[in-house]
């Protein structure tokens, strides 16, 4: 007699669990244009690489003889699998079982997934659909008590949800309606993606309706709201594209802070010089230019992966490679407030620079910053405090840093173009232009008496402006060694590749001096 009957029962239970919420609920999921949890995991991971844990955990029904009649699985599915050959943890909500609600989750599964990522040093992908958290208000009746969020023994999952940001790459995918703790787990990530048909909110339309706001899901928390607000980094048309974005993001990062970012084979000539860089910056300083083609021109061809394009848009942020070495790239976008640092842009910089520091990515900053955004709205948004917060984040980095001053560098935001107090590499383009504050307005402030006393104040103003402009050449700054090098802009890629080579031996794996916050 062997253990065949038990094996048969195990297989039966596994089969029941794989049915998820049953054919009807699965059909409804598909009819909504959404994949099931098992299809999602299958398409996110390398083929047949998923090793599931806790598959048969759920709620069983037995007949009078104690024989298993049915099994409804937990609506949280997790395990490990591979992405491009590297092992990751995936934890995914099953919306076909009680709408993904925490009522049916078995929250220890989610906890174990986070713990596994943390303690086995594996990236984690959270595939989120539903609410999670304390469950619906029905649980007040089923448990006979109201839920104290974070009550006795209930904080450990929150611990890993946030602490993992300092240890392993965390990706959140919002696929469907995401609310409450689900929204929190999506936002508490290094990189979050939602599909354009999804919605994410703290509380959904029925709850918000009680405040008198009658809004549909999309109006309340659609991708246009959430990517613009910076709560979610990216939106895709399809779930496949969301999986591809997650895979691509992870390809630049180490499995954990205890390793260095993965270097790939160099595929692009490090000596490549792009003629376009000689004329891309308009001579007229009132004119703007598109910065993304510049970024794409100086990094390895096809390697730029932008993150958070709809938020804090005066700064473009993303990951890229230089001769195969991953780097974090920030670039000013003059189309948005001339590249000035807005409060939003500062918040974006803090999170991005922290990501670079956490995962040992050298930073490249292609700079054209006329300063902080000015004016009443900027003051009301506490731009200066967010600004010095961004500066502090930059100053707290220890990863190597290289700044290219493409055009403007003005004021305190201008000063934050490299970490203070240590040596970084810096090159100024021929188009570089800098100052404590702009001449426009700056002259009126500094030469008020002289201008007022002149018979023709306007002419006097022009005369002073002309006088000062003659002294503004970046060569005069270099002459006094206030900037160390002015370069032919076509030399930018060779110099950045050189920077990445110099940076490589300086990168040290390990925990950062702080654990980053979302």
């Amino acid at each position, binding site marked *: 007699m062997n253990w065949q009957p038990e094996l048969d029962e195990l297989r039966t239970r596994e089969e029941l669990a794989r049915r998820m919420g049953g054919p009807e609920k699965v059909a409804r999921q598909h009819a909504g244009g959404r994949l099931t949890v098992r299809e999602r995991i299958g398409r996110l991971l390398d083929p047949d690489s998923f090793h599931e844990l806790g598959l048969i955990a759920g709620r069983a029904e037995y007949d009078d003889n104690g024989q298993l009649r049915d099994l409804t699985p937990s609506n949280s599915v997790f395990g490990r699998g591979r992405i491009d050959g590297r092992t990751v943890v995936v934890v995914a909500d099953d919306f076909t079982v009680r709408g993904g609600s925490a009522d049916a989750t078995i929250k220890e599964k989610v906890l174990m997934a986070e713990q596994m990522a943390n303690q086995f040093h594996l990236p984690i992908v959270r595939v989120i659909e539903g609410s999670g958290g304390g469950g619906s208000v029905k649980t007040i009746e089923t448990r006979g008590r109201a839920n104290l969020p974070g009550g006795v023994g209930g904080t450990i999952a929150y611990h890993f949800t946030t602490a993992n940001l300092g240890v392993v790459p965390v990706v959140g995918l919002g696929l469907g309606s995401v609310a409450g703790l689900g929204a929190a787990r999506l936002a508490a990530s290094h990189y979050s993606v939602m599909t354009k048909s999804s919605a994410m909110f703290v509380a959904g339309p029925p709850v918000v309706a009680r405040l008198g706001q009658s809004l549909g899901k999309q109006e309340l928390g659609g991708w246009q709201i959430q990517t613009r607000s910076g709560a979610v980094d990216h939106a895709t048309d399809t779930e496949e594209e969301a999986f591809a974005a997650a895979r691509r993001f992870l390809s630049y990062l180490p499995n954990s802070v205890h390793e260095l970012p993965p270097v790939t084979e160099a595929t692009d000539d490090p000596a490549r010089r792009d003629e376009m860089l000689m004329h891309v910056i308009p001579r007229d*300083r*009132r*004119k*703007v230019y598109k910065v993304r083609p510049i970024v794409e021109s100086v990094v390895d061809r096809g390697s730029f992966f932008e993150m958070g394009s709809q938020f804090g*848009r005066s700064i473009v942020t993303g990951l890229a490679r230089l001769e195969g070495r991953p780097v974090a790239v920030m670039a000013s976008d*003059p*189309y*948005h*407030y*001339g590249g*000035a640092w807005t409060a939003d842009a500062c918040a974006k910089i803090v999170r991005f620079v922290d990501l670079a520091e956490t995962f040992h990515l050298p930073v490249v900053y292609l700079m054209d910053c*006329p300063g902080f*955004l*000015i*004016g009443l*709205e900027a003051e009301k948004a506490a731009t200066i405090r967010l600004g010095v917060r961004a500066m502090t984040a930059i100053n707290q980095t220890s990863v190597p840093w290289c700044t290219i001053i493409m055009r403007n560098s003005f004021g305190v935001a201008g000063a934050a173009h490299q970490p203070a107090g240590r040596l970084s590499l810096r090159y100024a383009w021929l188009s570089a232009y800098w100052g404590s504050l*702009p001449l*426009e307005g700056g002259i009126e402030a500094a030469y008020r008496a002289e201008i007022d006393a002149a018979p023709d104040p306007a002419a006097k103003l022009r005369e002073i402006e002309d006088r000062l402009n003659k002294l503004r050449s970046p060569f005069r700054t270099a002459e006094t060694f206030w900037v160390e090098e002015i370069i032919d802009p076509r030399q930018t890629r060779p110099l950045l590749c050189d920077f990445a080579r110099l940076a490589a031996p300086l990168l040290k794996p390990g925990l950062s001096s702080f654990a980053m916050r979302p």
Partner: protein
Amino acid sequence: MTETAIPSELNGTVWKIEVAVGDRVAAGDTLILLESMKMEIPVDAPCDGVVAAILVKEEQAVEEGDTLAVIAQK
């Protein structure tokens, strides 16, 4: 016929209006120049079409999200 509203992407002032109602425009054509941080920020047509409305005047202050113009597409 669909109409596409062109919103301002930032707070600023209308510097120049480069098109008139009835003009045929192609995707990428500059419709309006805004001024912000003393820079001229072009607002480009996101699609081909005909300018159906211009809802702002030169020197007018605009806020992020304000509709500047409308393009009608066949």
